[in-house]
């Protein structure tokens, strides 16, 4: 199963290496990882997506990460109400005669054009990973020249909605 883990660390050299090294040593597969400063300059936050087999494994992962001296806090936020975002840059073969058509696909995804050449256009898409997957699938037939994704970063929502039976029907 896929889990979203956030790790708050002291921002000093080697800490990313320490965390990824630990995941490698304990045989966890990282799908994506993002790192950046937080509101405090000496504190960084990492967001991982990892694949694990079972609950026990994820508990081990959280405990092993927490054990690191430079790690302040580890959270498995998968089951919480969260905001999750990823950014993708996609360079597409778009000759002028097809551009309108391609733009009509991009529009519902609220993507924006960030670079344009004679025959290629680079789009930027922001959203949760599934949205980006969906966009890629639709745009693939036109010919993707280059694609890069940042990996996800995530936040726990301020208000944690407790799912009720009724709401789940509505969903």
């Amino acid at each position, binding site marked *: 199963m896929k889990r979203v883990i956030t790790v708050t660390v002291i921002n000093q050299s080697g800490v990313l290496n320490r965390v990824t*090294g630990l995941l490698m*040593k304990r045989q966890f597969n990282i799908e994506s990882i993002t790192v950046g400063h937080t509101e405090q300059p000496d504190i960084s936050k990492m967001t991982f997506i990892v694949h694990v087999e079972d609950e*026990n494994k994820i508990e081990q992962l959280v405990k092993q990460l*927490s054990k690191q*001296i430079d*790690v302040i806090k580890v959270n498995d936020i998968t089951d919480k109400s969260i905001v999750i975002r990823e950014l993708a840059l996609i360079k597409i073969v778009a000759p002028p005669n097809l551009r309108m058509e391609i733009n009509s696909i991009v529009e519902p995804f609220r993507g924006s054009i960030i670079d344009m050449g004679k025959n290629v256009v680079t789009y930027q898409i922001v959203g949760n990973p599934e949205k980006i997957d969906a966009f890629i699938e639709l745009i693939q037939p036109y010919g993707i020249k280059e694609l890069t994704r940042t990996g996800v970063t995530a936040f726990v929502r301020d208000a944690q909605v407790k799912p009720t039976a009724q709401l789940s029907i509505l969903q």
Partner: protein
Amino acid sequence: MMNAQVQLKNRALAPKGSEEGTKPKQNGAALFIESLKKQNVEIIFGYPGGAVLPIYDALYQNPVKHILARHEQGAIHAAEGYARVSGKPGVVIATSGPGATNLVTGITDAMMDSLPLVVFTGQVATTVVGTDAFQEADIVGITQPITKHNYQVKNINDIPRIVKEAFHIASTGRKGPVLVDIPKDIANTIFESEVDDDAPINLPGYQPTLHPNFLQIQKAIKAIAESKQPLILAGAGILAADASAELTEFAEKQNIPVTNTLLGLGSINGEHELFLGMAGMHGTFTSNMAISNCDLLINIGARFDDRLTGNLSKFAQKAKIIHIDIDPAEIGKNVPTDIPIVADAKEALKALLKHSIEAPDTKLWHEYLSECLAEYPLWYDAKEPDTVYPQQAVELIHRITNGEAIITTDVGQHQMWTAQYYKFKNEHNWVTSGGLGTMGFGFPAAIGAQFAKPEQRVISIVGDAGFQMTSQELALLKEFNLPVKIVILNNSCLGMVRQWQETFYEERYSSSLMPVQPDFVKLAEAYGVKGYRINTIHEAEEILTEALLSDEPVLIDCRVKQLEVVNPMVAPGKGLDEMIGVKKG
């Protein structure tokens, strides 16, 4: 004498700043030595080299007892032995590059066995770090997965703080090795400003839990009160927490039998009536049956290592499991736990001792275990009357030293026989490489142990192969007149490898026999150490008694039965209740 003169001369040449009332300007190395002194470091095991020249120069001017090993691996194993018996962090200094990489085995060994070490390595100057400079190795990168934490000093102002943190991290919580890498130019930099050394340690990501959770203790008490077949599994966590007295008191008070992990030996008197012997792959039949049949397993400070548990799916199937460990990551790692208690072993035992727990009658359980002990004791078959069987040698050592010596070993057959037949009377007397299983560990560890406890008898029981991995440290016995006793159980082969080849590879002894061995007696004599050779059991009695009780360093080459195997055994992949070789014949 010469040395003293040289030192005096040197002092006369030293800058006179202090006489004029101003503090002399210090370089990073001097600041480093001062920081070490603030940690009450009494002994350093090390080896100099280019990148640590400034540090060794500072040591020359402001001495801390420094033991010059003959190989960095010897230095670090000695520091481990020192740490194991003294409880204090062992301190090691080595130079950059090969000096640092030679420490890797010892660091890993200390990590696996939770020994407090603070290791300082020199590094090439910061101006050339990353350029593949002479004797450069990325030791911080190399040791990242094998240290509890590591540092590279990047600013001279950080030296006091980093040294302080390193000692704090190494010696608190679950103990372990911490490495500090010091580039040469940092050690050479003249330090101008004042440092505030009294600043409290600020490590927001490191706050070990020492006191047990009240509710979890209540749950444990309830489980103990309901158990008819309880068992305590005591590991090295007891020794790290100095909790032997509490363990014994608790076991006696509740009348619960105790088994040990390999590293936990000595946490309860080896001849205590509640003690069942070591458990695991070469543990006693009784201990393993106790684990397999207990209804409550109280694990205090053991990490359910695979050599202890055997096949996990068959481990303690009938038992509710209480796991007390200072490291939360150990709980539930290998064995699902019913009642997890994150705490220091001593604190947890104290909390349990506060309550009087009414437990059901466990008479039947004790009767069952006594029957097991009587029916399936440890055994060996000394068929050849003159030959020394290795088990006999260990039994003799036990008898002669009354179970009170500090014993160190490497890994392998001799280690298992020592664990089985040396009944430790006291805690902190057992120094062995458990988790990593390092050949060549035992002898240098004995040197460190002897430095820690000069008054105590220290015996290193080693194999002929392992001893040759670090025998160069014999030089230290003579140099410091350390009365360490080395007993080589010499079977001219890699005993445990050979045993597995005999048992699991149809006696194909691939590269495990060593027909050509040095003359160990002459080797000892070459280093100025008295050597003895034992060929028969009669000689064994006589020579061991004489040699072990002497006040000198001694090496004893004890020729033992070559094809002897360690029994009983849990074969790999089997459960603890599937032991083989449990009975003679």
